[in-house]
């Protein structure tokens, strides 16, 4: 195995909201009443059924409650275990599935406050992502601005499958706010289920939905590049989280070929897709969709044509690897250092900034 080095940045941790009622203290009277009198159920997404073998490693599954819901477990199993200096919390709570922008706004507000108080306040190593009510651009921007005052929020979080392709101009005010405030946009696996979870319709199985996340990331990259997001927002970084990355080289071969063929359609795309990816797009390490032989993996890294694209992640508590094999076999020490420390620090500018210990 390749050993992790101390001082890494774990870019994909998933603290779990125990239940929708856990957010009640962070809601106003109206929404507290709505949740209780309407008998609203917990917002668990089909993307991650609680008891699915990939939603938690067996040895990370607590005796009671949702995996990832106890901070002591996360500290012991992820942060301490891998000598992590910073861990970025990406709550995957199904607020994106909500259809009402008002409800989504109330829930996101509560979720972000809950994260600050119940997690970030309790461990200095933890940093947060701002979950936004993407159902309303105006409210999403307001939530980014509200939370960004707390420097422990280092990223804005969106899901890879939503209402519209993420490059659409509709979303650009979100990107403008993120760029202005020095926040990368993290795009995580998962769906709002407002569209079928694949581009050919509804499959039958959970495994099918999970496999399809990789295809969704591909179409989003096409959209982000073709629409010209990074022409307008050159300083904006986007991080593909739990996306897989071994699909990237052949995806770029195809995109590059068609860009050369039909670039008259999107003349503002003035750089090759690979160059845009190098300057603006990053990927979390896990899952590594490759066979375990070091030779194949090193070939794949060679196909990536850059050692700056991958950011360390455990994807805790999801299952992606067993034991301590968070890094695939055969990586050079130089690449390990880049993945664990240099690349995340180059991506998350706010990690360098002093934090002011006040909840938003």
């Amino acid at each position: 195995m390749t050993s992790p080095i101390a001082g890494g940045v774990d870019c994909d941790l998933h603290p779990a909201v125990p239940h929708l009622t856990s957010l009640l203290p962070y809601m106003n009277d109206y929404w507290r009443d709505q949740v209780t009198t309407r008998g609203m159920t917990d917002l668990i997404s089909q993307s991650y059924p609680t008891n699915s073998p990939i939603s938690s490693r067996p040895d990370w599954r607590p005796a009671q409650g949702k995996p990832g819901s106890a901070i002591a477990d996360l500290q012991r199993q992820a942060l301490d275990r891998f000598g992590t200096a910073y861990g970025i919390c990406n709550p995957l709570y199904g607020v994106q599935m909500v259809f009402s922008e008002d409800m989504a706004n109330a829930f996101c507000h509560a979720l972000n406050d809950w994260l600050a108080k119940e997690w970030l306040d309790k461990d200095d190593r933890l940093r947060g992502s701002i979950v936004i009510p993407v159902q309303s651009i105006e409210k999403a921007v307001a939530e980014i601005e509200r939370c960004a005052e707390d420097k422990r929020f280092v990223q804005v979080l969106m899901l890879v499958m939503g209402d519209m392709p993420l490059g659409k101009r509709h979303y650009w005010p979100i990107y403008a706010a993120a760029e202005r405030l020095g926040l990368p946009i993290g795009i995580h696996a998962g769906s709002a289920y407002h569209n079928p979870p694949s581009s050919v319709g509804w499959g039958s199985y959970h495994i099918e939905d999970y496999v399809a996340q990789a295809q969704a990331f591909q179409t989003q990259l096409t959209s982000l590049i073709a629409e010209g997001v990074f022409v307008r927002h050159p300083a904006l970084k986007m991080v593909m989280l739990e996306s897989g990355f071994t699909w990237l080289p052949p995806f770029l071969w195809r995109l590059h070929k068609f860009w050369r063929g039909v670039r008259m359609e999107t003349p503002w795309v003035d750089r090759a897709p690979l160059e845009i990816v190098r300057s603006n797009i990053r990927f979390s390490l896990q899952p590594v969709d490759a066979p375990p032989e070091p030779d194949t993996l090193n070939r794949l890294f060679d196909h990536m044509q850059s050692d700056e694209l991958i950011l360390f992640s455990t994807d805790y508590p999801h299952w992606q690897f067993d034991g301590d094999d968070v890094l695939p076999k055969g990586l050079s020490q130089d690449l390990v250092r880049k993945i664990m420390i240099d690349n995340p620090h180059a991506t998350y500018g706010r990690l360098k900034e002093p934090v002011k210990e006040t909840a938003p």
Partner: protein
Amino acid sequence: MNVQLRERPQTAPSSGVKTAIADCDIHPARATNDELYPFLAKRWHAHLETFGVHSYQGMMGGPPYPKAQPNASRRDAYPPEGGPQGSSLSFMQKQLLDPNNVALGVLNPLNTGQGIRNQDLAAAICAAVNDWQIEKWTSKEPRLKASVVVANEDGVSAAAEIRKRAGDPNFVQVLLLSRNVEPLGQRRYWPIYEAAQEAGLPVGVHAFGFGGNPITASGWPSYYIEEMVGHSQCQQTALASLVLEGVFERFPRLKMVMVEAGFGWAPSLAWRLDKVFSRLHAEVPHLKRKPSEYIRDHIWWTTQPMEDPESRDHLFQTIEWIGWDKLLFATDYPHWDYDEPSRVLPAGVSDADKQAFYLDNAKKLYGIS
């Protein structure tokens, strides 16, 4: 009307490929729409004139994402006698088959009854297109072989059409498109696979089509380039569905060809499937083997649009992960992103691999001696 801006260049003789090749993706077109009428019952002539074709997209005529060229085809491929690109046998012979020494050309008609909402009309047009392929193409040119097109959303009618054509040497495969009402592994499509296996015909799945689903899992994108690139993601998902639904367990002799969707993504998809399958096999107990093994044994890939990385080593490594025995050369004639046979492979391929890539894999798969 299309204006010829430049003088049509003379058809150049092939430079690099001297030996015979198979072209596994040729798109024959109709010179006029009523070319199909002799093969269609009178009822449908009136229907088509009155209602047109009711499909799973909004445009009555033409594609919702305008193509980069008229008919998405080469500007030098208009036949001298008129009509759209790909509509003249004699010009196809002169421009494609003769100069490139094509020994086997597989016809994949695209504007057929597939993706039509009225299933009776879909079946009638598919049957007509199949008759038209024999009448206009394969009976007049023995190098060309046809694909059985079927009303893809009606498995029963599709299976009947396949059985009608079984054993007819004009046909070498059944043709589906990647985008349908549901992912291709779903049971509504199983009668198609059952009949194809029974007839000993591979099922080609060509990129494109309309099934009512947006071409991304996040809705409709803005540009033609997104649709073009997106077909590869549709194909990946359709293939995952075929594997995970257990189609290859149920139909162990079924062979499928992924047509015009790229092949570079195959290793990554297979690795991802294997990885999650190792944890989630309890959800799909009907699978007896690893997903990658079904893909290795049941799937072939046409080459166009050829994967084109900067480094030829990256291409060769990718092909080794898939297998030189699984690739079928294709030009996509007369479409604009046509691959020129002599330029498609970089130097450094063994003669045996070249022979397999350009001809032998296709002859073996399609049963051509």
